[in-house]
């Protein structure tokens, strides 16, 4: 017992400033965490409990089981934030409530959605996918035909190129993780590898690009390098086991693991192989980001290594000093996350977070960091590293290259794209949390 106690104590030694505890305490489960709580000063608040009694739900028969279940009525706050509920003639977006979720899979009803002309109501029987251009045999596929092909399942994230754009504001906007980072989600996608279909159509050696086009009102169109199409691109038919949601491209979408969301063309109806890119509206204007020197990046493709803390985060309140788990998601468009470092003192000191299995390439990775808050102000940050050796930049490093606004924009604005730097949450002495630049 003596040696075990000593070992627990060693694990519970702070490993970085402001109360970060060695992540190995998580592996030891309840006893180690209990130890952490026991040493916290506020635990004496454990009040005398009232005698236990049955709730009314324990004294009556429950409701009939529904054919398609939805979350408990007590979870009505767990919803996406929608910025165009009346379907006015402009873009509409719905953001994932990361601060209310756990794990790495975004539930289908909460996956982020952006539509540039509303959500189309596509009859899957009439929908077609055409492959043509620089191919040997132009082909047309029905959904029924594609569903008969060998299916592949893979867990991966989709992130809008404009996710986190409010972080380009010169002053930190007082918004929560949903408003700042809600245009990224992660699901298990199932479908047909595009390379399988291209084998059947044949590829003219002159082809270098594929122009993908949707069947939605704007006929949204993006140019995709053929190399990506042959690497790991999928015609996705299923999302977390069921058919793709209308907001994600029902009945089929192009999925390009790790690449900018807008390129993952939804409602996919046409793939044209070409020698050159089309320079479509979205690739030559919207997702071509302006740089401080007046030039612009285009064909950015990659969603680079990134992480953010989902809990605790703005909107949460720490009710008393004591034990908390700092947790969030990390991901990279180039591959696996190898390490996430967490700071509770604004980056002065760092400790390595535990990575929750599974750790998959181009997918959300859940990280966890045990923390004993002593009730004094703290600044929480996370910093991710990926298997290509790339490290998530600090905000100062990113802004030095990419710029920032001269005055705070609307939180719904997109001053620039591809923000992947560190996010900082400040905890004050009352346990309230706000967004800061640190």
């Amino acid at each position, binding site marked *: 017992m003596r040696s075990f106690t000593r070992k627990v104590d060693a694990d519970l030694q702070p490993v970085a400033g402001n109360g970060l505890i060695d992540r190995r305490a998580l592996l030891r489960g309840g006893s180690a965490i209990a130890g952490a709580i026991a040493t916290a000063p506020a635990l004496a608040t454990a009040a005398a409990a009232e005698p236990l009694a049955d709730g009314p739900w324990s004294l009556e028969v429950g409701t009939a089981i529904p054919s398609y279940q939805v979350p408990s009525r007590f979870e009505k706050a767990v919803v996406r934030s929608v910025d165009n509920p009346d379907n006015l*003639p402009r873009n509409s977006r719905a953001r994932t409530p990361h601060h209310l979720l756990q794990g790495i899979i975004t539930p289908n009803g909460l996956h982020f959605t952006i539509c540039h002309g509303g959500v189309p109501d596509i009859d899957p029987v009439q929908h077609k996918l055409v*492959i043509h251009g620089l191919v040997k045999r*132009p082909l*047309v*596929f029905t959904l029924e035909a594609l569903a008969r092909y060998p299916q592949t399942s893979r867990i991966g994230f989709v992130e809008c190129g404009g996710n986190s754009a409010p972080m380009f504001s010169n002053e930190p906007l007082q918004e929560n993780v949903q408003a700042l980072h809600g245009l990224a989600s992660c699901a298990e996608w199932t479908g047909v590898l595009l390379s399988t279909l291209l084998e*059947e*159509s044949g590829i003219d050696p002159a082809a270098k690009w594929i122009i993908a086009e949707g069947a939605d009102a*704007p006929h949204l169109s993006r140019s995709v390098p053929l190399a990506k199409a042959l690497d790991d691109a999928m015609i996705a038919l299923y999302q977390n086991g069921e058919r793709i949601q209308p907001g994600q491209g029902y009945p089929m979408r192009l999925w390009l693991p790790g690449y900018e969301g807008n390129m993952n063309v939804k409602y996919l109806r046409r793939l044209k192989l070409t020698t050159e890119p089309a320079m479509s509206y979205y690739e030559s*204007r919207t997702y071509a980001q302006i740089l401080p020197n007046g030039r*612009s990046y285009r064909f950015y493709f990659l969603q680079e290594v990134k992480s953010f803390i989902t809990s605790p985060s703005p909107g949460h309140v720490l009710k008393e000093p004591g034990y908390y788990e700092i947790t969030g998601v990390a991901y990279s468009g180039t591959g696996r996350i190898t390490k996430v470092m967490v700071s509770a003192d604004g980056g002065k000191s760092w400790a390595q977070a535990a990575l929750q299995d599974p750790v998959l390439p181009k997918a959300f990775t859940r990280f966890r960091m045990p923390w004993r808050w002593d009730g004094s102000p703290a600044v929480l940050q996370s910093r991710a590293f990926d298997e290509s050796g790339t490290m998530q930049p600090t905000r100062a490093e990113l802004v030095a290259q990419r710029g920032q606004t001269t005055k705070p924009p609307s939180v719904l604005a997109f001053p620039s794209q591809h923000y992947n730097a560190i996010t900082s949450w400040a905890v004050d002495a009352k346990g309230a949390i706000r967004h800061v630049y640190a």
Partner: protein
Amino acid sequence: MFTRSILAGVALALVAGTSSAEGPNLGKPITEAEIAPWDISIMPDGTGLPTGSGTSAQGAKIFAERCAACHGEGGKGSEFGAAVVGGPPHATLDGGKTIKNYWPYATTLFDFIRRAMPYPQPNSLSNDEVYALTAYILSLNQLIGENDMMNAQTLPQVKMPNRDGFITRFPERI
């Protein structure tokens, strides 16, 4: 390179004509003529531009009827539609990407108007109408003369000011 080897493999399979016998082969052959109604991509060199033509004067009339409700009288913009003329000389992170100071190719105007506009009735304009609207917007921005005719030959020749303002972020991924 992994990707390149797959690419080579597929190209070889194409030449040998063997791959199609092994796969499910559930795609139906279709001709480019049958695909044509959906083949609306316009390339920067003008590939894909249809026959037809239009002038700024013709476009002004169509714009007033079909576009101004959102994009404002004379293209000056509104709550629902971006301005198609005016704005700052250069875009910054504070905003101000315009057709004149940002769009690298005039062909994108034709492509986007035809496939996506008017917002409530996309892909409903005739090719002549799209050429006319393209001419009107380019003329408003003084990128062409007010009497210049836009068609499959002239539109790709329009030099946009910011054509060379872009950097490919990851050229090795193309």
